[in-house]
């Protein structure tokens, strides 16, 4: 922290390197035929889920509030895209614009109630609203397809697997930069102040509820965009997208990656998805015990490295230097 300029320059350099590598990646993968296409698809999913995890971390890491209903906005985004494209023949760009907007509106309504509560009660209310939305989508069979989900969302001709990967990557980079800007802005600092000491934040004149609500809405919007992108990737929207167990995914990813860093959740999310598919490729029976692997990994993080992998790395890094 004390050496801002050099570390931020190193950050830019590594960020640009990673981005360039990610941009070139599908060109190589494209050479590998079907296997390559499969991995392009997996990589696209990683990018999308990374965005989902980062969106949650605005509330979780920077805001210090544990939301167990974040998947609701992810799902609302997905259903917005699916319904607009399937039933109203919207083009993709309009549907993908609408997804974060609808999610933001939903988040505004839900958040208005939720930010009134603190700590555990906030978590439970987000869980309650999340399940309520899940149930509504589940029961509204004629509109949302209920348990069947909405499958066969159209895909524009030009968006082959590689092009869609690039589209997602571009959207991700843009969102990453926006989130970075938000976090480093005076708004972001206020959010962090509220997390550290709410009384102090109130004392220096920060309107705690309004800031938290705004943060909640922004996070919901990004989650909605991620949901819309996943919907178009898989070409379906499913009720499971809103389920509370889906809300747990970005929390796990954030925790594994590190909740107090910007890129941590994205990395954590990618590692988890990758690990799952890696184990599955090594041996098929690993799919059966994947939840056990994930659970044990989570236990280890909770008990021994609550700062996440990024924190762990930072600790080792610091120790080796001193």
């Amino acid at each position, binding site marked *: 922290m004390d050496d801002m300029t050099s570390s931020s320059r190193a950050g830019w350099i590594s960020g640009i390197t990673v981005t360039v590598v990610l941009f070139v990646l599908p060109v190589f993968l494209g050479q590998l035929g079907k296997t390559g296409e499969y991995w392009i698809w997996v990589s696209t999913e990683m990018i999308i889920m990374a965005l989902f995890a980062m969106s949650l971390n605005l509330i*979780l890491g920077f805001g210090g509030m*544990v939301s*167990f209903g974040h998947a609701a906005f992810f799902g609302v985004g997905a259903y917005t895209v699916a319904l607009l494209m399937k039933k109203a023949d919207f083009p993709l760009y309009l549907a993908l614009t609408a997804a974060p907007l609808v999610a933001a509106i939903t988040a505004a309504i839900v958040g208005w*109630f939720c930010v*009134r*509560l*603190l*700590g*555990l*009660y906030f*978590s*439970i*209310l987000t*869980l*309650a*609203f999340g*399940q*309520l939305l899940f*149930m*509504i989508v589940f*029961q509204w*069979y004629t509109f949302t397809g209920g348990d069947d989900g909405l499958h066969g969302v159209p895909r524009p001709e030009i968006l082959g697997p590689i092009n869609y990967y690039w589209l997602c990557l571009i959207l991700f980079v843009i969102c990453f930069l926006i989130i970075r800007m938000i976090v480093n802005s005076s708004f972001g600092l206020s959010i962090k102040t509220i997390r550290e000491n709410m009384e102090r934040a109130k004392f220096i004149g920060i309107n705690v509820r309004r800031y938290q609500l705004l943060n909640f809405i922004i996070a919901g919007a990004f989650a909605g965009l991620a949901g819309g992108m996943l919907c178009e990737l898989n070409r379906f929207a499913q009720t499971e997208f809103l389920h*509370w*167990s889906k809300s*747990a995914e970005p*929390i*796990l990813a954030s*925790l594994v990656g590190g909740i107090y860093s910007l890129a941590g959740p994205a990395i954590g999310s990618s590692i988890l998805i990758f690990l799952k598919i890696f184990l599955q490729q090594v041996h098929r029976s690993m799919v*059966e*015990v*994947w*939840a*056990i692997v*994930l*659970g*044990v990994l*989570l*236990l280890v993080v*909770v*008990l021994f490295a*609550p700062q996440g992998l990024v924190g762990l790395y930072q600790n080792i890094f610091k120790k080796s230097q001193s």
Partner: protein
Amino acid sequence: MTWQLFVFMLINGLCQGMLLFIIASGLSLVFGVLRVINFAHGSLYMIGAFLAYSLSTIFAGESLMGFLILLMVVPPAIAIIGFVLEVSLFRRVYREEHLLQLLLTYALVLILDDLVRVIWGGEPRSVTRPDLLAGSVDIFGMALPSYNVFILVVGPLIAFGLWFLLYRTRTGNIIRAAVSYPDTLGALGVNVSWVMTSTFMLGCWLAGFGGVLTAGLSNIDLGMGMQTIIECFAVVVIGGLGSVGGALLGSLIIGTGLTFFQLPFGRWALVFPYALMALVLVVRPWGFFGKPER
């Protein structure tokens, strides 16, 4: 609706509520003392149900005696699992943030649920109801399964037992003190960690008991833990986090609500628990019987 039908539906709903109460009261009790929302409560309940299934295949499940043995053997077994979990894991996170506590219990959900899949496979199972409880009881010309009546009898017994334990014994006094004044209790020379362990075991005992009862009522399968834990959250929130009396009220509201609303609202009846849960949290976050915190 005739009044006979009303009474019938009420009784049927109360049966559902009682089953829910047995499971949810454990969750509420554990929260009250340990201040941890235990997501894994649903998994322990599921393990109880599957254990009951396995044991029922060993000794004849169709005699009432066999079933009562299940009810006596399985809940303590779950309590022992709870003991191991509390001593080895939960204890380490009492002083940590809520997030880490929730995630610890969620990690347990992932592990325990998958273990059930590995041990018992993905097939749904059930325990044959004992002969004595397989028939039905006549209520104004409508038949109510005797098994449901059995739950309706057992539920209040458990509720009474809990009340007696909490309000009429020394242990209960200590547990209630641990809810209200956790800090002063240690200063008074009470072994607080022992109180926590035994409360946690009691919670698990209740989860196991609910599991056995469910195994006789319907199919048991891998999703039951995840589904029930959310219903239990609804119950506990409506009644008030940490309050056993509240859990009783909450579960009876949800049990009867689900039965009654099915008739006029059909599919939308299932939205009711979550809508009520959200409503209560918005209007009165500490629930009907809870106390406002901090």
